[in-house]
């Protein structure tokens, strides 16, 4: 039968390439703000490992069973491309974890240093002001209000706490 003699298409290298690309793009899930972001590093690693398994499988099929599978050259090229993409995924993973330990940063129970920084309007804002220690200091971030007779509104009740979020910047 002609159909049984015809060599099968070797899909493994293509699956490898797809998984390798997915390993890179899985990192972009971060920007979508989905829940379950803790799974991103694991997902990326799993996809990269899957890509390598399929790349090896594809090359082995092409060279060990050339009578069954076609495409030895394409399997090799795709294998190398997949490997390079996986190497990049590994680089991203290592780079993402390359953070200072910040062992001396304030811990629970410790006092944080005060600061005075400019807000988006260029107004100086201090932590002390934010925590409501300064009489009549507004608490909604517009701390540069020069009103010396602030009306006693609900907004002037000192907050129970302030959340400080340090981030890497917008770039």
């Amino acid at each position, binding site marked *: 039968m002609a159909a049984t003699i015809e060599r099968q298409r070797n899909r493994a290298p293509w699956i490898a390439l797809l998984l390798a690309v997915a390993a890179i793009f899985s990192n972009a899930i971060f920007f979508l703000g989905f829940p379950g972001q803790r799974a991103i590093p694991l997902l990326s690693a799993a996809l990269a490992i899957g890509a390598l398994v399929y790349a090896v499988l594809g090359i082995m099929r092409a060279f060990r069973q050339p009578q069954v599978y076609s495409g030895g050259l394409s399997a090799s090229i795709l294998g190398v491309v997949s490997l390079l993409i996986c190497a990049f995924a590994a680089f991203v993973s290592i780079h993402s974890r390359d953070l200072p330990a910040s062992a001396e940063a304030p811990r629970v129970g410790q006092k944080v240093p005060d600061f005075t920084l400019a807000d988006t309007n260029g107004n100086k804002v201090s932590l002390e002001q934010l925590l409501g220690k300064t009489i009549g200091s507004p608490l909604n971030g517009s701390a540069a209000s020069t009103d010396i007779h602030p009306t006693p509104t609900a907004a002037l009740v000192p907050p129970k706490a302030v959340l400080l*979020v340090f981030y890497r*910047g917008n770039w």
Partner: protein
Amino acid sequence: MAISVDTPEVSRNLAGKAGYTFSILSDPGAETIRRYHLLHKGGGPDSTDIARPAEFLVDSNGEVRWENFTEDIRIRAKADEMLAAAKKLQ
């Protein structure tokens, strides 16, 4: 309060685009970031110094009541985690 090395202009653009209503503070010289021991040397574009991601809930005495230091920039504190920490103070 969000704090980064970005200038007020950059932060204003970010807030405008993203629709953020919370305050964003600028620490272009990273003095405060350094004082909090959160400096990520060369971590930014063109090897500039930036802040490593970290979140603190500071009570009215200036004391840390909750904190979060990620070990992977792909994992950050979620809003509900921070809200839960804030609710515990009440």
